[in-house]
């Protein structure tokens, strides 16, 4: 589904790239974990496959179409959903409106369907008493579940998450990872999670470690 060819990135000095000549493939219905120490470039890699930045060299292909061809804005709108460590919800909206807004922007097939959004939220443990409450009044775990619900409501086949459990306790971490597994296995989406937690990575179908500017497959 998603393929990188000769992907490389550096900030200022080409001679000191974060990673170089990365050739990876990610499939639908699978979950992937990318491990690595801080500063190794795993989040930068994620920003490239999420269409938030352009690679310095190489290219990314989605179903054999280059992101350059698709266009980054189009790609972000239709093909990829992102979950952030800091949740990054619209803080002046309720969980329900957060979902409806994302569905409207991405022209999702269920755009405008309040019932669908409500069901998705309910499935993730956000009850009816919470769905119209301002998101700032929800706990961290609840906010992250809303962020995950947002990715589930959109039609994007690729879900990327940057340290999604970084701010969560053990129980919430387990629950969030379960949700990602459901997204991969039940909705048939490709889930790529960047994490520094081996326990989280272990729950994914495939694990890669970014070290010495290269990705090493762990399992």
């Amino acid at each position, binding site marked *: 589904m998603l393929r990188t060819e000769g992907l490389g990135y550096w900030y200022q000095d080409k001679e000191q790239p974060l990673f170089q000549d990365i050739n990876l493939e990610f499939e639908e219905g699978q979950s992937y974990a990318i491990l690595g120490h801080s500063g190794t470039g795993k989040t930068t890699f994620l920003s490239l496959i999420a269409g*938030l930045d352009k690679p310095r060299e190489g290219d990314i292909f989605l179903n054999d179409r280059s992101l350059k061809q698709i266009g980054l804005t189009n790609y972000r709108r239709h093909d990829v959903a992102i979950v952030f460590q800091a949740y990054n919800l*619209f803080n002046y909206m309720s969980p329900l409106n957060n979902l409806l807004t994302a569905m409207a922007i991405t022209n999702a097939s269920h755009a405008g369907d309040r019932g669908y959004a409500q069901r998705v939220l309910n499935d993730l443990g956000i009850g009816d008493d919470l769905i119209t409450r301002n998101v700032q009044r929800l706990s961290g775990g609840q906010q992250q579940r809303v962020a995950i619900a947002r990715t589930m409501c959109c039609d994007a086949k690729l879900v990327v998450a940057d340290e999604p459990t970084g701010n969560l306790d053990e129980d919430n971490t387990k629950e969030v990872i379960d949700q990602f597994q459901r997204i991969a296995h039940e909705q048939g989406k490709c889930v790529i999670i960047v994490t520094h937690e081996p326990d989280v990575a272990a729950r994914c179908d495939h694990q890669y470690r970014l070290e010495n500017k290269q990705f090493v497959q762990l399992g």
Partner: protein
Amino acid sequence: MNFFKRAWLNVWAKKGRSVLLILVSSAILMFVLAGLLIRSAAVKATETAKTDAGATMTLSANRQAAFKKIQSSSSSSSSTSSRPKLTLTPVKLSDAKSIANLSNIKSYNVTSSTTANAKSYDTVSTSTGMGGNSSGGPGMKSTSSSSGDTQIDGVTSTALTTDFTDSQSKITKGRGIKASDKGTNNVVIEKELASQNNLTVGDTMTIKETTGSKSTLKVKVVGIYKASSTSSASAGPMSTDPANTIYASYTLANTIKGSKYAGTADSVTFNVTNPAKASATKKAGNKLISSKYSLSTDDSSYQSIKASMNNVEGFANKIVWLVAIAGTIILALIVILMIRERRFEIGVLLSLGEARWKIVAQFFTEMLMVIVIALAIAGVGGKFVGNQLGSQLVSQSTTTQTTSSSTSGQPGGSGQPGGSGSSGMHGGAGGPGSTTSSAKTKNPDLEIAVSAVDLAELGGFGLAITFLSIMIASGGILRLEPKKVLIS
């Protein structure tokens, strides 16, 4: 069009911030509206001044041409011959009527002055005595140099004379002279003269001509007026006491002067409908008259009001633009700060694939909602601020105007005191019947009222300010890279 909904949700959710923005915007728009109101009121006041202040055009004998004629004849004649005399041609009423037919002429007043002697009554005596020694009409070479003790001011209507329009004289009993008094012996006398002789409305009095057959005439008192100043000290040494001035129809004055004065006048004053076109009217009038006559315009009242209102209008314009520019800068700064505070939200929107112009449109819509409410508040408050500012401006402008008037005003009119005998004019064009402009020019009050046009103009300014503020601030949005915001 999801950005409309987002804008509404944001404005509603962040009520405190929205209220503050509304207050700031209201204050800016209130001053813009005040400026707009003062400006439109000043324009309106200037328009009103055209009709209220008016302008006049006076047709009289061309003294300059007459003097030139004397000079040329004296240079050509021998030194032993008698000195040539100034001969002024009285204005023919037929010429005056042709000028009166011009489109910009509202009305006209014929003035013909002379003197007569009291026969059946006693004049108000003054210590200065009567020094005038001229009689007869303007421009006629007089053979007599006698002057009466009663000043006869022949007019078309007393209501059209400056003394009455400026309230220096007021009818206290009966009525003034009207156009319908033409051909009659009706007169209006001064209160002091009336009380001294126990005369009242309906009484008759007899006057005696000072020239020709020196016959007597019976005149009927139809009105009594009171002059604000009857002191003889203000008159020239050859003038009669102002209380001895009798208003009559110009036909009566001409009758007293003599039969050759029929159908003539000392001067004719035309009231111009639109003072702004006074000079054009004068130009058109000059084409209708010969060089023996001259036309002079007096639109000083209009010009002074116009100058004053132009000052107010200019100041109001400055207010509008200064506040608009300052408002744009203030709002732009607020929006820039607001956008900086919402970088994460913008980042999330970009990560969802939202178009940048739609994000800008969301901010614009939010500001638009604020501006609509601010417009309503400004619409109410602007009138109050405009009233306060407007009256302050007008009072300052009036003070400036009064100062400049007192230094540039001319004492008296263009008339001649007494008469030199040769001209045969008594008082000439400067007599009480002329409409020489008064130095007193009252600026019109500004009528501040909020109209639909003002609100529409304010709405335009509000929109422009909002649009510019958002455009200035949106540079940040357009440059924002989601990766830098969302992934640290």
